[in-house]
């Protein structure tokens, strides 16, 4: 049993949520509503500035959902997550420029590179636990950025410019801000949904067991190392795709985009939203990415206000806006119910 969990606050019974607000949050339509809002947003405000902010926010949601797999589901503290985005962005940028390909066609290479990066960093470090893992990932994040800063192929400190757009069919260019926004929304929605499904899968359950108590999980036959490596690799893929979108959005990649602060912000989105709960994390990511823009009227005080707001949230909702409840509702597929009935008859 993990000692750091305060069970005195835990509800005695886990019931379906009673309040109207929580019922709304649990509703399965919520995801569709969020998607509808995202799709409708450009009809309300389609200035280049608004589209830019919204696209950036959507990419940030993708990163947060990827980090949520690593930190939220599996409990592996990763302080260098942005490095995977760097790997994705640089890979797609370099390949697209070298072969003059649309970014879309660089995806297979990006996939290979991010999985490789995930395995290379994960394989040796995931034998470490908690604090040590955090320090090593922090180091990895910095190594990636500094390497990019010094290599010729990555363009050194000035990075890569003039990356081709994602796709062009005839006269129709997917790179137009509004079209690119919709492409981003589509990709991000797919990845968020996939991450949420992963969390409910058998593998997701194994992640939760590892997060709660690694030794007990191993004693019950979970291959903890493999399971952790999978979480890390999935996180890497999510980050890599965030990188592709990032490269497409800005058409330029530079090392300054991948500083530690970025890793910290993504982690903040996960913690603020509620670790392990994909819906909460999406909200956390939107708050973290949009709030500084909404506070723009405060001029140079806006990051001060941002910081104070974050502290206030953590004081009042230490588990995040919307913490994951430690259970999945009792689901009984038809065949299980039958099996139970048969077992009952045999008695």
């Amino acid at each position: 049993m993990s000692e750091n969990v305060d069970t005195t606050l835990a509800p005695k019974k886990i019931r379906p949520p009673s309040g109207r607000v929580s019922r709304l949050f649990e509703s399965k339509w919520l995801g569709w509503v969020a998607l509808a809002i995202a799709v409708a947003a450009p009809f309300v405000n389609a200035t280049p500035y608004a589209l830019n902010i919204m696209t950036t926010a959507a990419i940030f949601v993708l990163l947060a959902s990827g980090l949520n797999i690593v930190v939220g589901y599996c409990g592996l503290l990763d302080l260098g997550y942005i490095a995977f985005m760097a790997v994705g962005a640089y890979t797609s940028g370099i390949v697209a420029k070298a072969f003059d390909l649309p970014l879309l066609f660089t995806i297979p290479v990006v996939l290979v590179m991010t999985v490789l990066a995930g395995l290379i960093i994960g394989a040796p470090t995931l034998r470490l636990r908690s604090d040590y893992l955090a320090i090593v990932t922090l180091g990895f994040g910095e190594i990636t950025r500094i390497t990019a800063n010094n290599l010729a192929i990555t363009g050194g400190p000035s990075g890569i410019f003039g990356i081709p757009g994602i796709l062009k069919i005839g006269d129709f260019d997917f790179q137009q801000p509004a079209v690119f926004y919709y492409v981003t929304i589509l990709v991000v929605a797919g990845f968020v949904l996939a991450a949420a499904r992963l969390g409910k899968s058998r593998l997701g359950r194994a992640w939760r067991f590892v997060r709660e108590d690694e030794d007990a999980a191993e004693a019950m036959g979970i291959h903890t190392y493999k399971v952790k490596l999978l979480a890390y690799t999935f996180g890497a893929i999510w980050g890599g795709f965030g990188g592709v979108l990032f490269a497409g959005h800005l058409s330029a990649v530079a090392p300054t985009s991948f500083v530690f602060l970025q890793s910290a912000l993504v982690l903040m989105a996960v913690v603020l939203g509620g670790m392990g709960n994909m819906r909460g994390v999406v909200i956390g990511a939107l708050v973290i990415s949009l709030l500084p823009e909404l506070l723009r009227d405060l001029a140079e005080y806006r990051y001060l206000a941002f910081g104070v707001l974050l502290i206030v949230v953590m004081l009042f909702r230490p588990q995040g806006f919307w913490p994951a409840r430690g259970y999945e509702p009792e689901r009984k597929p038809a065949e299980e119910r039958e099996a139970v009935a048969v077992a009952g008859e045999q008695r």
Partner: protein
Amino acid sequence: MAMLEFQDVEVFYGKVQALRGISLNVDEGEIVALLGNNGAGKTTTLSTASALVRLHSGSVRFAGKDISKAHPWNVVDAGLIHVPEGRRIFSTLSVLENLQLGGYLVKDRATVAKRIERVYELLPLLAERRTQQGGTLSGGEQQMLAIGRGLVAGPKMLMLDEPSMGLAPLIVAQVMRVISEIRDQGTAVLLVEQNARAALKVTDRAYVIDNGATTIEGRASDLLTDSRIVDAYLGNG
């Protein structure tokens, strides 16, 4: 036929030798107790069997197969289940979810559901609390949950590490009753206990471990009156 068999097993933690030659066997349908003082090597013996710890020399066989070099998940898959010391249930997950972890390696969900029902029959208090978080259970209930979780894996043999730890005498008696019921249903049990008197009441045979080696072996009824055991572990109370 021997279910579990240790032959001259030696284990090192770094340079420290924890086991200096453990030899024991547990037969089908038997409850065997492993007694000994703190640091004698009881827990290490169990961890070696479940492959959480690597052995240095000697051999461990389970159900006719050598498991000296197996991995933890192979051992679980083979049907040897270790219920670790201190219960180690998942305090933030519900009782049902804790039980589901036991069936993690079982591919067939219907089998898992059936086994969970059987655990609820054996331990009705768990059925009452199936949606409650593990951490809100009492110590005795948590121990029952840990045993139940082991049972869902469908064990041929269960290894229990100090199930009486920190429990009131009445609850210890309940736990011991459950353990003999499990045996009656055909699962062999290896029971590690400091509470030698409670353990010897339900077991068929017992081994005493001292300083990493098996020193005394005998029938439980004989050991209860054996002067060496009485002096060292039972007292004259």
